[in-house]
């Protein structure tokens, strides 16, 4: 059991600029938490503060009800996998894995048993006598993970553990990490800059930018209800399409009008939000590429109405496999759509697409916040 709580944690090196600002998070046991964000966003710094490798400038770190700000790294009972693996070069794989147990003076036969168990689990039994210099990147990675899982620490910390591997190996290790998490039943805190890793592995994702948490939520909600334009653009590939639109009311209905003659109707709860405060204002519309659909797909989803229609000029069709990405322009705006690869598309011609306005996001152009309320807040507002 472990329960890690960060409360208003800040990190500053020069007392003026903050590398991490007001980081607050509760991590219940067995969660797979991902810190994701562009480089320099403070995600690694936060992880290192939890590990005890960096001092916490202000705020509190609680591990299992104990204030841990000043507890030394070696006494926190965590284990960590580093980006460069940090294997001890002078020790064999076996000794590397046994290190954390040996310095705790555990009985030899027990250590031996655990090393072999972990090695078997990771498929590195045949490497136990080798030294790190004689291992490939993927093997080093496994040894690093193996060393980390020898103990049953309160949490595993992983600092971009897959970033030094090639794409294929990375995909493979991702699956294995997910399996491992299920088997070990322990909290994992994982830092990455790769949104795919974040989405596939995490049970909870913390998106950071410039030392500030942008959103902390489940992968689904982060994807479907990004808190602001940054999160919306960072998560998901290809990125979300953004269009500047005017909020207009016509014949009792609310429309978003964009450059290139695009007029899209907004319905339901979203319509109410817009009607309340935003009529006549300029807003940013965000649409995921898969929510721009060709006619066949759209009719299957029953969104094939004129009020959802938009016309665009196809600049390029990128064939991916089952799908194709259409890179298009609608005059001033460049947009991307994800359509089935069998959809008939002619390049350098106009195409009619249908927007799934149910899934559209609308952002304030100045604060860049999502003005559509998140489901969480709706519930809370109801109870308050």
């Amino acid at each position, binding site marked *: 059991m472990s329960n890690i709580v960060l409360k208003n944690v800040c990190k500053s090196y020069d007392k003026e600029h903050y590398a991490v600002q007001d980081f607050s998070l509760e991590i219940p046991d067995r969660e797979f938490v991902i810190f994701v964000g562009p480089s320099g966003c403070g995600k690694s710094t936060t992880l290192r503060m939890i590990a005890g490798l960096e001092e916490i400038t202000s705020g509190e770190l609680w591990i299992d009800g104990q204030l841990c700000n000043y507890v030394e790294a070696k006494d*926190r009972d965590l284990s960590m996998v580093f980006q460069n693996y940090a294997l001890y070069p002078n020790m064999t794989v076996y000794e590397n894995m046994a*290190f*954390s147990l040996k310095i705790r003076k555990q009985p030899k036969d027990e250590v031996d048993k655990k090393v072999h168990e972990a090695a078997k689990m990771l498929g590195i039994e045949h490497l136990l006598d080798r030294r790190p210099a004689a291992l490939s990147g993927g093997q080093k990675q496994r040894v690093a993970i193996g060393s980390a899982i020898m103990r049953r620490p309160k949490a595993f910390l992983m600092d971009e553990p897959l970033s030094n591997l090639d794409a294929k190996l990375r995909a493979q290790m991702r699956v294995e990490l997910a399996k491992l998490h299920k088997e070990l039943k322990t909290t994992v805190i994982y830092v990455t800059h790769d949104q795919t890793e974040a989405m596939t592995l995490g049970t909870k994702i913390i998106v950071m930018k410039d030392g500030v948490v942008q959103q902390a939520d489940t992968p689904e909600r982060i994807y479907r209800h990004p808190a602001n334009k940054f999160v919306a653009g960072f998560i998901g590939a290809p990125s979300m399409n953004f269009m500047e639109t005017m909020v207009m009311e016509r014949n009792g209905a609310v429309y978003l009008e964009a450059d290139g003659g695009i007029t899209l109707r907004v319905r339901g709860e979203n319509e109410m939000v817009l009607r309340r405060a935003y009529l006549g204002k300029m807003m940013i519309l965000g649409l995921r590429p898969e929510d721009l659909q060709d006619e066949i797909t759209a009719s299957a989803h029953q969104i094939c109405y004129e009020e959802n229609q938009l016309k665009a000029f196809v600049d390029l069709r990128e064939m991916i496999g089952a799908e194709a990405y259409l890179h298009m322009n609608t005059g001033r705006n460049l947009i991307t759509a994800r359509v089935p690869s069998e959809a008939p598309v002619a390049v350098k011609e106009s195409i009619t697409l249908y927007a799934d306005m149910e899934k559209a996001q609308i952002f304030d152009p100045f604060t860049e916040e999502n003005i559509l309320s998140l489901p969480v807040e709706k519930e809370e507002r109801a109870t308050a």
Partner: protein
Amino acid sequence: MKKVIEKCKKAEVYMYLIPSMVIFSIFLFYPFIKTIYLSLYKTNKLGEAKLYVGLDNYKSLLSNPSFYNSLWVTLEFVAIVVVGSMALGLLGAVLCSKAFPGIRVFSTSYALPMAVASSSGAMIFKIILNPTIGIVNKLLHVSINWVSDPKYALICVAVLTAWLNSGINFLYFSAGLGNIDDSIYERASVDGANAVQKFFKLTLPGLSPIMFYTLVVNIIQAFQSFGQVKILTQGGPGESTNLIVYSIYRDAFFNYRFGSAAAQSVVLFLIVMALTLVMFRVEKRGVKY
């Protein structure tokens, strides 16, 4: 004509080697062979080989207790110097491995002995160790005649040499420490290791490649110590500091027994070579990364 140019071009390649090779030939290869040659002869006072005696010079060395003494003294001396100078260098390097205010001054101080000449160092030690006015006796409140007492003389020369050689060892070890990846210390912290465990399990093994190199260099250097002995003890008292190099010097330039001195030179060379080869053999087996 073309052929001549071609040949010139070929010859040009060797031109770049000529300066070094000529000097090596005159002052290293030739005297090396000449030393072996001399060691087989009896010589006159001018060092000219006069009478072929075969291995007689070696035989008389091997039956001479004074020679065994100087071999033994040399080994003792080398052992103390190597251990001492490496320990001092390592101590300095470890103390300077973490940044703190004034680190530049300290690291310069630790490396400084390498700029001190053996003769200057010996003169300084001579005063420091002086039985009546020496500061060491005053500080320790003893009256030991350091360099004239057979019990202490060798240790004094060895300590002086260790001090002189510690400077460059400091540089070697500092470089070695700098080569150790910081993140393995971080991993060790998270793994639960304390400072002592980190030092013995990570720092020392991490230094082992450079440690080996330093050991070889130190041993070779220690075998060649001369100025210290010449100025501080002249091989005495008795023959307690009669290192092999000093013994060579004395045999050749005081006793004019060039043949015997040459034989000792050959022995010195053989010992150094054997030690070096053994160490490389051991290294191949020991340090695997």
